[in-house]
């Protein structure tokens, strides 16, 4: 739950900073359809790396790229486990 709320609050902070309008952040919404563009997503991944010390994309292991927000959150929860 903690990771989920961190991710959601970071998304909201970045959207505000980048002047993006967000759709409701449900698990089913597509990552690139929620209102963030790929630059925002890059900022999100870097910010989570700093805040949570988690970078599931940074290892050499191939990570299937998350499509929905739910996939994205699960990827981080898995990395933290």
């Amino acid at each position, binding site marked *: 739950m903690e990771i989920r709320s961190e991710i959601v609050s970071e998304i909201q902070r970045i959207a505000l*900073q980048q002047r993006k309008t967000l759709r409701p952040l449900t698990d089913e919404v597509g990552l690139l359809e929620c209102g963030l563009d*790929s*630059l925002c*997503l*890059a*900022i999100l*991944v*870097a910010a989570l790396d700093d805040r949570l010390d988690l*970078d599931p994309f*940074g290892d050499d292991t191939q990570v299937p790229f998350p499509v929905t927000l739910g996939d994205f959150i699960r990827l981080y929860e898995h990395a933290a486990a």
Partner: protein
Amino acid sequence: MLRPDRRPLWHLTAHDDAMAKRFLSDADGRVDLNRLADLRILDAPDDAMLGRSVLISSTRQLPAVLALLRLDGIARRVLLCPPDLASEHLAGILADGEVDTIVSDGTGPAGAPVSGLAFVRCVAEPASAAPLAAPLGAAAFDTEWLLLTSGTTGRPKLVVHSLASLTGPLNDGLTTAAAVWSTFYDVRRYGGLQILLRALLGGGCMVLSQSGEAVGDFLARAAAARVTHMSGTPSHWRGALMSGARTGLMPAYVRLSGEVADQAILDNLAAAFPLAQVAHAFASTEAGVAFDVRDGLAGFPATLIGGSGAAAELRVKDGSLRIRSGRTASRYLADGAALADADGFVDTGDMVERRGDRYHFIGRREGIINVGGQKVHPEEVEAVLNRHPAVRMARVRGRRSPIMGAIVVADVVLNDPASPDGFQAVSASILEACRATLPAHKVPTMLRQVPSLEISSSGKLARPAAGRRHA
């Protein structure tokens, strides 16, 4: 290229009647130029140095300058070794330069004898005890002056200059006998050597900087010696503006080179030194001095490009500035890479962009941050950050990103350091200013306050490679 004048540097220096007033000084010593002929500089007679390939090693600059004065026109080659040469590069540099003799006061990168090479002591504090005769009136050798490139990584390359190529830029009206020159640069680098030659050949004096000396102490020395003409990189000058010790410094001429001079630093220097002409010059170790700009504006007039007949011809190809002139180095040593293209133009690797009737430097070709295929030059973003009234100095770099390849992040030094809470407000204002002038991919995604930014030994902002973290 033959030197225009067969006299060695020693005689070119001792050319006027005002020698009694002329001096060279560093933090530990001072030499009056009218006493040059009385000085015992090398622990070997001139004939023993004839035709030698010499590396000069000293932590201080003054002993190195005296050795250089003694050796030009006698030695086949003089390699000016900066005090910060990494020890792992010494053997390679000695081999590339075919060095057979080390001249040293026992300090610097080659302060101890090296097997197989002659070692000649140069005296750190010249004594009048056993003077040598002045060197030959005419140069026996058109000595090659070897300078190290200021490459960011790996072994530096050796660039071959001559006294003629190095003194080519001096005929621009700046070199007056009344000048007391100083520079933040070490004179064993191209930018500093230019200033040394202006002082020596122009009939002036020079206050040398010293490795490891605090900027405040150096500026206090410069002020006490009444320095009139002073040069450094924009990073050097930002450091000077942050130092309280610049009070008392009253230069008539302030020169910037080595990095992009943005409008903010030009304006800040004009405000700090209202009586000074603030000029910025473009030069590189390989290409030499191309031009200087004295109108107080960033960038340079577009009319400089493509003209012929000028001392340095400029062209822009594939976005980068190219230079052809008699001031360029002749070649690299021990390196297959050509220094100039087939037409004799040196590619500086500095990228320029035309805006109206001026060209502006937007950064180094190799420093480009690739944000999802869109190119960002750190310097163009730094110029925007530096314009913000709260910002003293900024460094922009890439942070690796699995999503975009890289994203832009920035470190800033504020004029008045802010608390973490206070920084949030300042940061928002800075980023707002960035968004007003830059496309989204160039706006820093993260801004961090730092107390200071590292300046490399060549006086330029240190630029670490892109890392995972913003640290």
